């Protein structure tokens, strides 16, 4: 049988077609990665439910306030730079000297780790309607950074590694030992509005 050679297909235009598709995808897609600070909002209190004043011990709450003019206050102190706020929050959450004015720690049995002293401290972040979002995020970021620093320290002491280098299970243990308790309290203005 005479072997019939198939004629070779001209592939010269293949590059053009591929380029065309490439340009198309460049135009219609975006590459912006979704990154940010994750938060969980507190559920809306039930209307019928009597508004109970949450009797969290005063010593367990630190109020971080951002005023209309973007001035930051932590507790009673006026904060001038990020390091200062970090210091105050860190001292508040770790309470190294077991100061009775700072949050108490409760021993908890954490699965996979054992007994651990967990701080009951809650950071309450408050802002005014006139606060700029930039400042708000800046403060949020500092608070998260402080907690991440504490977690890092904790994991260095107990696991000898950085928090980010640990596996998922160990990370969740640390997350239980050093919880991220940032409460975004209800703004006062909103209460006025909802009655309208």
């Amino acid at each position, binding site marked *: 049988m005479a072997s019939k050679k198939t004629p070779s297909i001209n*592939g*010269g235009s*293949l*590059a053009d*077609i*591929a*380029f065309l*598709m*490439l340009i198309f*995808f*460049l135009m*219609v*897609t*975006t*590459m912006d*990665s*979704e*990154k*940010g*600070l*994750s*938060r*969980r*909002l*507190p*559920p*809306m209190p039930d209307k019928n439910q009597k508004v109970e004043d949450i009797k969290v011990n005063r010593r367990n709450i630190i109020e971080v306030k*951002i005023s209309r003019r973007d001035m930051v206050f932590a507790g009673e102190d006026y904060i001038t730079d990020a390091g200062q706020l970090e210091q105050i929050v860190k001292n508040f959450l770790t309470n190294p000297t077991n100061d009775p004015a700072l949050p108490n720690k409760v021993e908890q049995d954490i699965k996979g780790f054992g007994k651990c002293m967990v701080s009951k401290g809650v950071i309450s972040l408050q*802002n*005014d*309607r*006139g*606060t*700029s*979002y*930039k400042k*708000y*995020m*800046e403060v*949020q*970021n500092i608070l*998260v*950074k402080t907690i*991440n620093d504490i977690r890092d320290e904790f994991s260095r002491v107990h696991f000898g590694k950085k928090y980010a280098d640990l596996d998922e299970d160990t990370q969740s243990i640390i997350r239980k030992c050093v919880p991220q308790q940032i409460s*975004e309290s209800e*703004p006062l*203005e*909103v209460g006025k*509005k909802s009655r309208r």
Partner: protein
Amino acid sequence: MGKFIKKGKGGTPEINTASLPDIVFMILMFFMVSTSMRKGDRLVNVKLPAATEIAKLERKDLSSYIYIGTPSQQYQNQFGTDARIQLNDSFKNIDDIRDFIASERETLSESDRQFMTVSLKIDENTKMGIVTDVKQSLRRCSALKIMYAARQGDK
């Protein structure tokens, strides 16, 4: 010295372009994998605030977006320069968020609904007032998982 006499005509020899499609296809594949489809037009100017402690959104397909910022140039004479909310492809009010969340929830499967995340893309010069209103209405329709979108800032 016949060795050095140029044979034939001068000019550059033809470059073999047989591998060009392969290379372009490779780039194409890269873009197809690493990018996502653009979702509608952006009607508001959003410059995200910088943050260092940012985490990646786990499930992109479960997120809906709320944009807040000043309207773009061409909409300013119609909507002013105050911060506005953009849902999908149009300017909306606070009261429309409830419907928006409800319809976004509809598109997800039953089991995924609890993981729905609302990504707030807010311009850094926005005042917190409008942000607080949005947060309150999100709480009201119990879309509690939110994310403040931010860009990577330097430490």
